[in-house]
């Protein structure tokens, strides 16, 4: 990694909470896209690979600063990225 930038990733629901991965600081390059964050997350914590793939494919909602974003969007260093898989009735 060529930068000291990082973002925080949280899962909702906390699917990796039992592994101690509730709130994860992820090192990222400068001006990262969400897809960069996801790849950094997977490199640092390979056990999150399934969720990362789900997020890439659109099966998880990605929320930054109270806004739903696509994996192609850029995120500011220090931001918190939520990866969300909500549950509702049907």
């Amino acid at each position: 990694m060529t930068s000291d930038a990082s973002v925080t990733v949280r899962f909702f629901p906390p699917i990796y909470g039992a592994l101690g991965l509730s709130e994860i600081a992820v090192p990222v390059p400068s001006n990262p896209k969400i897809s960069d964050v996801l790849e950094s997350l997977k490199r640092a914590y390979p056990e999150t690979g399934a969720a990362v793939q789900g997020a890439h494919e659109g099966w998880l909602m990605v929320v930054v600063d109270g806004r739903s974003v696509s994996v192609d969007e850029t995120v500011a260093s220090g931001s918190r990225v939520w990866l969300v898989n909500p549950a509702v009735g049907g």
Partner: protein
Amino acid sequence: MPEKASGPKMGREPLTKDARRLLALAKSGRAMLASIAPSYRHLPERGAVLVKTLRSMGFAAVEETVGALPKLVIMRLQEMDADPRPMFTSSCPVVVDLVRKDFRDLEAAMEPWPSPMVLHARSLKSRYGGDSLVVFIGPCPAKKKEARRFPGSVDLVLTFAEVWPLFRDVRGGPAELPVEFDNPPPRWTAGAVFRAGVSGLDECRRFLAAFPSGVDRDEVVELLACVGGCLNGPGMPNQPGRGRLS
């Protein structure tokens, strides 16, 4: 002689009062908007007949109720940030009534916002005009009572079982009518449904009696009264005692 009709023809089952009301509203001249619960995916042809028939009846828009989810999820996250604590949610009016009646001390732990049905109806009316009529179609007759609790949102609630007699004989419809939903929701909404954290009324009671035991502070559990979730709701056409879909 078969009845000659330009709109949907009747099936064998007698129409309910609300199904007849749907037919009357369709002739009212007001913009008709449909909000379809996600269980439609378990109807034949994944609900294509439903969508096409609603269009043939003159509906101006046919959308998925889960279109309300992005806004709802963001509100949930903001609530968790502001006040991290164990919470439970329920889009099920039976569970909401259960909490209000038998577990009143847990009301503060229940998600405070209306269900996706009500939020989506409000969204539809904000986009298409307050004079439009919103019809929610889903697997649950209890939604009728919920709609009355939020006046000005959903104008009519019908179950899939109630509307199916209207649709059986119009399979196909005008060939040029699209079978896709309007304003399709994000892909992830398809995975959001049917994953009931707790389902079945007895299980819900047990969960509520023990709450917050076993629930993490940043966990939100969805409660549904029907065993296995809304897919097994009494308003699905293939439930025991009802005619099977053909």
